[in-house]
């Protein structure tokens, strides 16, 4: 007998391994950094970890957002991309900076829902399209997924093209 409506779900044992990186320069930490939690390369980021497929490359901009949608960290590349410094962006609401730009998605609720689930530790990595608030004609493809600790959502931005 077949049960076509049932699907195999990933179990805890199948979870993607987490990789550590600096929350500012995205470099992989040395053994010393893992102890101090502060990146000894740029001195300006805390070491966080995320699923391997989500972890940004050193040239990929990213932001980290908590479950209340408040921006907690901004990478060096994202500062350049967004045209503002980390101190200006941290503690702002994500929706004051980025909005969904995906024609097929159901508005801002979809973006918020994915981020809130990721910030709670939902292991799935989602692909989204966003644009900066107040600007049109620019789209960024993003990967969104969980990171931590503490638990938060990592949004890796990649300019179109």
């Amino acid at each position: 007998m077949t049960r076509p409506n049932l699907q195999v779900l990933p179990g805890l044992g199948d979870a993607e391994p987490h990789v550590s990186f600096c929350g500012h320069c995205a470099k992989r930490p040395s053994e010393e950094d893992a102890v101090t939690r502060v990146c000894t390369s740029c001195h300006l980021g805390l070491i966080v970890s995320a699923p391997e497929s989500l972890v940004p490359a050193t040239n990929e901009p990213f932001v980290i957002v908590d479950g209340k949608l408040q921006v907690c960290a901004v990478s060096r590349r994202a500062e350049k991309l967004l045209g503002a410094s980390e101190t200006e962006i941290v503690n702002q609401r994500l929706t004051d900076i980025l909005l969904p730009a995906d024609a097929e998605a159901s508005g801002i609720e979809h973006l918020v829902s994915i981020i809130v689930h990721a910030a709670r530790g939902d292991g799935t990595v989602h692909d989204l399209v966003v644009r900066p608030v107040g600007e049109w004609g620019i789209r960024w493809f993003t990967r969104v997924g969980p990171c931590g600790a503490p638990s938060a959502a990592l949004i890796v931005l990649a300019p179109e093209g």
Partner: protein
Amino acid sequence: MRTLKTSEAATFLNVSPNTLRAWERRFGYPKPMRTEGKHRLYTHGEIAALRDALKEGLSISSAISRAREKLTGDTPVLVGALTACELDRADAAMEAALALRSLERAVEEVLLPSLREIARRHGDASAPWAFAARWASDWLARARRLAPPPTRPLTVLFGDASRDELDPDVLETSALELFTVRAGVQVLTLPVSGLAGLNDVLQNFRPRAIVIAGSSASDDEVARWAYAVRSATGPLPVALYRRGERRAVRTTSTLVLPPAPSEAQHELMALVDERRPLAPSLRPAAFDTALLRRSVSA
């Protein structure tokens, strides 16, 4: 107040001294004091707050923001105590602030912002403001009495151009006077309205610079007083503090001091120090308070 050297603070946070200096450059936190030898000295409270915030943070920036919030927690306590007219609780709030900061920072980060908040909520013609302003004046006067005696042969004359003791400018001026006294400089404050006997006072108390503080007295009144002072002492640099708009440029004759008392004190010290030492015949004599009382009452 417990303080830590750079190496001690770095060990406490489990980071390198270079990291601490990088945070100071980028975020302005932790903000160290300087020893006489210009070495950094961190307050234990600031470093401890940062250590706790780093454990829960996702970035240095958010951890610093959280640590700052923790430290500014003294301001609402002081505002609450003064609004409820609870003097003991207000004194305790300042004691708590002093446990984490230098006196200068406790005044600038807790006392003055609390008073500004009370003025904003109730206005400077209200009973809560009068109560809070009198308490703050008394607190600053107590701190000034506890300041070490002058260590430098320098004197600064403050011309008080404020309205009365409840003028909001008075507290900022008192803070500047306190910081100047704590920098080892002798300070004398006289009202710009009092010209009688001024010459006698200034013969004994030869100031190195004049600060005109407050915005209530008219320009004519201030000009008459400054002319009388300069007639008695010869040409002296004049600085203006909280007297209307700050000019963008520094003129040769008048320096407009920044509104923050600590920044104003640094500029004032630079102004006083850049003048060459006085000839022995012109050095200030020991200050005669009895003569001052006689001259002012004359």
